[in-house]
């Protein structure tokens, strides 16, 4: 992965409609995607992630701002003149063509010679392991196979950037997990820059080199999955990615006062919200030094782990994640008096 920028959005805004009914889908968004990276736009539906993707593809034009590809302004280029291909959410495969003809479509439209089209098509079908299906009609394929055809079709013209619009959302869980690994493999093998749009935080964390978390037309935070997960910049990001305990506290002199105790924090002053991931909450015997006293109010078993809900002395609920033991043990029973501590460095101070 180089540091060169493949795609850049500069101060991009998009307003749909006019007057009172106008909706601002993107509000002065700037983002730079590095060449050869797997970049994910993550956010809830309606956050503008798909609009941004469609702008890079050329299906939408920004109300203001510009889109750059390899440093060249492509804002006014139509989709058929951008070396960028899309894997659509609905796949949008051509029903009147065979699998091979679908894959060959882009190359044929680019006017490549027949033998090159043939060779490249065969290569792509092999890459997505569909060689045996070349002559099939699209309607004869399963959802997962259609997904692979859509990938092969978009990759065949060797685009500079591949755009993926929630391509896995129509697949069931097992297939989705298999495709996640497959996508990552394809990206590594081809070295093509992938821009992936999803609302599924787990999908984003598993596959991405970098993630941009979006909400209401803004990018709230972008960084590696680890940065986003362990150092969320605000409450929205912390809440959207993974599970988080939000604990109101008052900070003074580097110490946050909590019901029944206190914890050291790196920054902040006055009333703040502390964020702690459930896996960083530890249950200890009550009375342990530095532990906050509490009582177990609920215990939910998930198989690999359990969520233990602990009410602090003022009623604030904190969830701890406990790995299941070999015998299926899942922590203290409901009603047990317990103490909680937080793993060192795990407490984040959030601006609301």
């Amino acid at each position, binding site marked *: 992965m180089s540091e060169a920028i493949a795609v850049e959005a500069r101060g991009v805004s998009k307003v749909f409609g006019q007057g009172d009914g106008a909706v601002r889908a993107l509000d002065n968004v700037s983002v730079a995607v590095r060449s050869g990276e797997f970049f994910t736009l993550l956010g809830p539906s309606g956050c503008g992630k798909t609009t941004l993707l469609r702008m890079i*593809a*050329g*299906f939408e034009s920004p109300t203001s701002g510009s889109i750059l590809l390899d440093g060249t302004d492509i804002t006014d280029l*139509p*989709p*058929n*003149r951008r070396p*960028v*291909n*899309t894997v*659509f959410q*609905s796949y*949008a*495969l*051509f*029903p*009147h063509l065979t699998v091979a003809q679908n894959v060959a*479509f*882009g190359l044929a*439209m*680019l006017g490549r010679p027949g033998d090159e089209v043939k060779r490249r098509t065969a290569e792509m079908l092999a890459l997505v392991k569909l060689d045996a299906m070349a002559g099939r*009609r699209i309607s004869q394929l399963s959802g997962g196979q259609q997904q692979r055809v859509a990938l092969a*079709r*978009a990759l065949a*013209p060797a685009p500079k950037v591949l755009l993926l619009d929630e391509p896995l959302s129509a697949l069931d869980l097992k297939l989705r997990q298999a495709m996640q690994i497959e996508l990552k493999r394809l990206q590594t093998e081809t070295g093509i820059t992938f821009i992936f749009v999803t609302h599924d935080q787990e999908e984003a964390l598993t596959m991405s080199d970098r993630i941009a978390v979006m909400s209401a037309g803004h990018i709230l935070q972008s960084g590696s999955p680890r940065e986003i997960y362990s150092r969320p910049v605000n409450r929205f990001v912390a809440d959207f990615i993974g599970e988080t305990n939000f604990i109101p506290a008052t900070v003074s002199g580097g110490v946050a006062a909590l019901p029944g105790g206190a914890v050291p924090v790196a920054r902040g002053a006055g009333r703040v919200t502390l964020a702690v991931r459930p896996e960083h909450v530890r249950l200890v015997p009550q009375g342990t030094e530095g532990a906050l006293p509490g009582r177990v109010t609920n215990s939910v078993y998930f198989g690999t782990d359990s969520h233990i809900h602990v009410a602090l002395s003022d009623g604030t609920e904190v969830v701890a994640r406990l790995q299941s033991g070999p015998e299926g043990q899942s922590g203290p029973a409901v009603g047990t008096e317990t103490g909680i501590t937080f793993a060192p460095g795990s407490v984040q101070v959030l601006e609301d």
Partner: protein
Amino acid sequence: MAATLEERRDRDRVRRNWWLSVPALVLLFVAAIGPLFIVLVYSFLTPGDYTGVQRPFTTEAWFQIFRERDIFDPAVTTWADAHITIFWRSVKLALATTLITFAVGLPTAWFIATRPPAQRAMWLFLITIPFWTNLLIRTFAILEIIRNEGLLNQVLLGLGLRSEPLQLLYTDTAVLIGMTYVYLPLMVLPLFAAIDRFDMRLIEAGYDLYASRLGVLRRVILPIIRPGIIAGSILVFIPALGAYVTPRVLGGGKNMMIGNFIELQFGQGRNWPLGSSLSVMLLIVVTVALLFYVRVATGGRRDG
């Protein structure tokens, strides 16, 4: 692929209940196949003295389609140029009607199919309104518009675009205008049905894969809505080829089409066998042309 249990059960049920289609079969026989058979028999008979047919059986009527006998010496024959002219004009006008209705109908159907669902019903309703009025009345309405003193010429003269009236009436162009107007809904409706099923996202996919606008139309839209194009073309071409009222009213006596010529044999011409042989001939030509067209248009495939 093996048929599923349900498919087999359904097929068995359909086979057992074949007798339910007896009324339809009887109607089909009495109303379609029976009369056709009579026409076929008539084409091998001799014209009656005043009207109708009489024996003996002969192939004379079929001979007359192609060759014309000299009035004074029946043994001398020449090519029946008039028949060929009329037949050729019919085919030409029917083809032109099909092409023009397609050219006009495709954007129309596209427009309707891309309206919001609530408006779509209204547009479709408007398309079918002409069917509510008798064909003859509508044809005379066209005549009113295009005749020398008609609306069109008044406008042209009034705007000073022409110094004398445009002679449209009683020309092939007039027949073409009339037929295009009459048969346009028959093209629009099947096209609409096909476009309505068309997944508009495929346009973006084509566009994304380097197809130009024209490329998307030719390589994505047209192939996918092909069943609608085939249906519309057949629905327009067949009645246009046998059109009677429109060429009669707008073409005058001179610009006859095959339908008018057949009518002439049963009326003033008093040559029922020739009228019959021409009818059967027309049927054969249409059937062969249709089979050929469908074969070519579907690219020899039977699926889809």
